[in-house]
């Protein structure tokens, strides 16, 4: 699943987010289930604030979402949503490619029949 995301066209932004070992581990943790920022901070030799910064980078890349539950901040994997968005964008791309094919046919008719009367406005 992570590999699918990395193969996607918007991978550049994702690579930056995942170019850090801690951030990769946070994603791996969140995929297994929701994690609180404080629980994550216990895993790494760094402050809660530093972990929050890493989570912020992952959030900006769309890899995780953050939610406040009482005093805790919960990190939730967003990979499923991201992948669904990619599938939908691929289908929307197909719609546009069909349109462009039809535009190509329309323009090709010009050369056979001469351009249609222009609608000046």
């Amino acid at each position, binding site marked *: 699943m992570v590999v699918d995301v990395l193969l996607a*066209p918007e991978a550049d932004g994702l690579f930056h987010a995942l170019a850090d070992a801690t951030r990769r581990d946070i994603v791996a943790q969140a995929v297994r289930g929701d994690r609180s920022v404080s629980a994550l901070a216990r895993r790494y030799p760094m402050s809660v604030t530093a972990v929050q910064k890493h989570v912020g980078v992952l959030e900006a890349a769309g890899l995780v979402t953050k939610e406040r539950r009482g005093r805790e901040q919960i990190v939730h994997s967003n990979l499923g949503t991201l992948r669904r*968005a990619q599938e939908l*964008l*691929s*289908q929307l791309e*197909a*719609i546009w*490619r069909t349109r462009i094919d*039809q535009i190509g046919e*329309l323009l090709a008719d010009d050369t056979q029949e001469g351009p249609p009367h222009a609608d000046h406005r």
Partner: protein
Amino acid sequence: MQTTVEKDATAHTMTVTTELDATVERAWQLWADPRQLERWWGPPTYPATVVDHDLAAGGTVRYFMTSPEGEKYHGLWEIVAVEPPQRLELLDVFADDSGAKNEELPTTRMTMTLTERAGGGTLMVMHSQFASLEAMEQLVAMGMEEGLKEALSQIAGILAGLP
């Protein structure tokens, strides 16, 4: 014709860039002439019929697409800005059976620009900002012909099986 498509699954945007073998003025007619618009906006099995075409800021373009079974799917464009023959900005929205805007369904903001290419021809860039994942679901459901949908879900299935 060379076409490139950039998609951003996080921002819900798509940019389609294509080289057209036509002048900027000719390419503008693809959008400005409703009879030409009808020839390419709908999928081959869901042809579009343009019923209103007021391509001016604040104006509306109304259309419907007809399914092979004869069902009509209405949509409309709310024109935000027009700079003939270079730029068009619009909101593409769903409409109900009477052709009136459906306020409950989301809106896609689209910007289209035409630029003359140095070597001849025109570069057409369409940038779409989709409102949400749900908005994309609805657009796909409305815009896809059944056969193509099946083919794509097969492709998606193959991609999902990648290691």
